[in-house]
């Protein structure tokens, strides 16, 4: 018998609200299956299980808010499985509160003959709202997003609550600035060669198959972290630094309307560029829909962030505890630079490292940045 417990989805998480069971008593469960949805400050997270067995008694009822480590269900028939380390249950946070049922898709939302924008239709479908019953305020009386939002009322449980997400970011970043002695390094990396390589690769591909520069930088960071493992892991004040067994890069993804998520792409150093691109695309879409998985929320070992597309030259990152480093990238832009005594124009990106001084020093940090730059000069080997 294995106890399936409320996981910790970040150092700042103390409790979560169970909003949906995706497996029911008697259902077979396998390692990696998504079995439940839990609402946290970071949105609704799909919770995976890491043993094989059969779903037994579900001891926590829907709508209950329970502390990290609380047993949610019993898993039967678990043989020779090593359960993951479990957090000790904490004192109850609040009395269980009944959550409103999660709205399902409604065929009525697709009603023909109703003029509605795609965004309005999508929200109506998600929230189970009949468009035919809404009065549109858009052009020619068409239904726009605002109309559906008005009709829908407060947000459903599955999805993002940006106010709560802001609170979670505030808690994590305040802890980071309070506890982690950051040091900062910056360097310019010549992106001329990797961009030219990318252009050649992408020329014969459809848009859906093309690679973005972000994939190159992610892979370069992952490979550099493999060489310098002291930047890839977790710091605990009692036990000190523990390098992580895998390189699971947290990818900072901006949420439209405000908010930020940094879910993990697992084993980035082992993924090919095409595979990495597929995962990045999928992760960004799910982060914005509020459909991330528990392992993605809890497993990131080193974060990478980029604001280059918004014109930012240099990104000074704040480390996400208990991680010990964050790598940032600014915009890639042509710049006059000197090569072999000649002034030439090169495409350059400013790469930064914020490191935890309890674990590494600037000297090691400079070598990490240097390695990232070196890896990018051989894009075909990434």
């Amino acid at each position, binding site marked *: 018998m294995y106890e399936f417990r409320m996981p910790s989805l970040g150092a700042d998480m103390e409790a979560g609200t169970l909003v949906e069971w995706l497996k029911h008593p008697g259902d077979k469960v396998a390692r990696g299956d998504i079995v439940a949805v839990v609402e946290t400050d970071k949105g609704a997270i799909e919770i995976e299980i890491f043993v094989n067995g059969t779903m037994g008694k579900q001891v926590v009822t829907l709508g209950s808010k329970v502390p990290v480590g609380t047993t949610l269900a019993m898993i039967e028939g678990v043989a020779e499985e090593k359960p993951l380390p479990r957090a000790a249950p904490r004192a109850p946070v609040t009395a269980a509160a009944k959550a409103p049922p999660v709205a399902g898709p409604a065929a009525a939302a697709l009603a023909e003959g109703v003029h509605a924008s*795609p965004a309005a239709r999508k929200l109506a479908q998600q929230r189970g709202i009949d468009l035919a019953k809404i009065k549109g305020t858009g052009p020619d009386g068409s239904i*726009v997003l605002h109309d559906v939002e008005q009709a829908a009322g407060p947000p459903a449980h599955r999805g993002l609550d940006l106010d709560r997400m802001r609170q979670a970011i505030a808690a994590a970043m305040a802890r980071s600035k309070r506890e982690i002695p950051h040091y900062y390094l910056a360097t310019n990396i010549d992106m001329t060669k990797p961009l030219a390589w990318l252009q050649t690769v992408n020329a014969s591909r459809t848009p859906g198959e093309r690679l973005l520069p972000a994939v190159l930088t992610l892979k370069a960071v992952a490979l550099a972290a493999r060489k310098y493992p002291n930047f890839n892991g977790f710091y605990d004040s009692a036990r000190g630094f523990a390098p992580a067994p895998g390189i699971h890069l947290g990818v900072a993804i901006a949420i439209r309307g405000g908010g930020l998520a940094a879910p993990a792409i697992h084993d980035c150093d082992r993924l090919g560029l095409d595979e990495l691109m597929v995962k990045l695309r999928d992760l960004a879409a799910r982060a914005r829909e509020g459909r991330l998985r528990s392992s993605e929320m809890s497993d990131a070992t080193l974060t990478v962030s980029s604001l280059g597309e918004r014109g930012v030259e240099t990104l000074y990152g704040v480390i996400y505890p208990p991680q010990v480093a964050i790598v940032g990238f600014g915009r890639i832009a042509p710049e006059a630079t000197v090569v072999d005594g000649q002034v030439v124009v090169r495409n350059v990106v400013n790469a930064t490292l914020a490191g935890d001084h309890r674990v590494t020093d600037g000297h090691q940090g400079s070598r990490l940045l240097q390695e990232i730059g070196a890896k990018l000069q051989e894009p075909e080997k990434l």
Partner: protein
Amino acid sequence: MTEADIRKLVIAELGNVAPETDAATIDPDTDLREALDIDSLDFLNFLEALRKKTGVSVPEPDYEKLLTVNRAVAYLVLKSAR
């Protein structure tokens, strides 16, 4: 496809890549990146969706020609007529 069909398609696909926003109500001459807060990943998804519906595969050097609704419509009208 007529120009009206293409415009409808462009707005629908923008709505799909940025469902939190309302593409139907934006100024058709505004930069999409600013109006809808879309990034390069969203833009690739937008182009791929257009390719599937129109058969027009936009090459990288032409990205700048699709950065507003009106410009995207004009580009696709031109390319799909060929």
